[in-house]
């Protein structure tokens, strides 16, 4: 399973870079879909089939379709680079380096040594996830759904005004 993990991990990282570096918005969106699907494969390798499939359905399927549709409707072709602000140039690179260093350090700290043993895989099937959502986390779950409902209503009201 290890070679598969490395293939899809590298793919995810390359695609993530491509999300940021592409000039054409549709290419960025497509790269993001590749990232999400590679992550789904990593979940699959970890034995979390339900989570992997849900990842594809919700993120790669539902959310990214909306992104792509919006980009298509706006017919955004190529982005013209803005006048880059001097400040962002000066601050950006060092900040990025600091962040990357921090990340590397955090990973290094937790890197498995010879004595590390893999934790037993938790049950991530639909039954277990459902029980968690509707027993332990029922309040946050419901609050989130109300939040989404409010957002949907807001979007409808805003869009209706322009019709």
């Amino acid at each position: 399973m290890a070679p598969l993990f490395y293939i899809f991990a590298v793919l995810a990282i390359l695609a993530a870079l491509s999300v940021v570096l592409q000039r054409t918005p549709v290419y960025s969106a497509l790269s993001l879909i590749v990232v999400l699907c590679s992550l789904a494969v990593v979940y699959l390798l970890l034995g979390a089939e339900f989570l992997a499939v849900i990842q594809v359905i919700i993120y790669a399927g539902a959310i990214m379709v909306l992104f792509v549709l919006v980009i298509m409707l706006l017919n955004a072709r190529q982005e013209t680079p803005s006048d880059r602000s001097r400040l962002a140039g000066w601050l950006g690179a060092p900040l990025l380096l600091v962040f990357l260093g921090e990340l590397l350090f955090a990973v290094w700290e937790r890197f498995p040594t010879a004595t590390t043993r893999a934790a037993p895989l938790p049950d991530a099937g639909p039954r277990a996830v459902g029980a968690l959502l509707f027993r332990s986390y029922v309040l946050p779950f419901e609050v989130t759904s109300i939040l989404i409902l409010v957002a949907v209503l807001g979007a409808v009201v805003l869009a209706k005004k322009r019709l």
Partner: protein
Amino acid sequence: MATGSDMPLLLLAMLAKVGVVLLVLLTTIAYAVWLERKVVARIQSRWGPYLVGPHGLLQPVADALKIFFKEDIVPTEVDRVVYCLAPFLAFSLALLSISVIPFGESVTIGGATIHFQITDLNVGLLFVFAVTSLGVYGVALAGWSSNSKYSLLGGLRSSAQMISYELSLGLGVVGVVMLAGSLSLREIVERQSGLWNVFVQPVGFLIYFTAAVAETNRIPFDLPEGESELVGGFHTEYSSFKFAMFFMAEYANIVTVSCLATLLFFGGWLGPVFGPSLLRALLPVFWFSLKVFCFLFLYIWIRGTLPRFRYDQLMACGWKFLLPLGLLNVLVTSLVLAWRST
């Protein structure tokens, strides 16, 4: 998990299985097209193809050869990368979902168990839905990248349609999942040994089938390619093999939803099994194929019978009728299940 020594053998067996399933699927697609032309011709009092081979049986071969030798035109103003990617995406995704479809009961021959299924995922049903939800991209990207008004409008229409009907498609089968208590297609079929789900979940089946027809962009819901208004819809600019890939993807999707309808509502491979052991092993596969064939025929029959909907009717039907009905079905099913378990 397999040990190191028999890993290559397992891999070989897997590859052989994938090869056989793909071969059968592609042949089914080719002859589904032939069947459609024949049946629709019969409905319209015509002959349909009959020149190539007896009853036009070799027509698919002729069609395939012809399509290979056609010039592949790529218009100058298209977005080349996405334009070439879209048909491959549509076709490969359409073929992918067949990998979790079980065709029959497992049989044991000489100590080796053969599963009539490429892989038994414990969330097989959701896997099919995940692949279907990605299928929208093929159509949407084809429409966008062609850089043509008809294609873009067709692509937008079909994306909107597929997204809308995906919800009803999912809601229609929730009742079945609740009854079976599992998302594995094999277990769902095994749970129906007493009574087929279509008798327990008739509303669910109606919702599923209607949404499936819309999801595969077929008449009476084939607005994305309504030729009187949109020329050819999202594949207006495609020619030769790229067009053939969209065409085959459409039929592969029809086969997949027919398989799924058979598995979820009509007991899959269940049916009378008798006779010697070889017959015993093959009869389930026969019953499964027969049921899938009936669905394919139903699809064609609907195409030959019903006129096309108007686009706003289509969207209203999806959101204001099928979706609430699906929710109601889920509610009633769960109430009955809860009442029974107390």
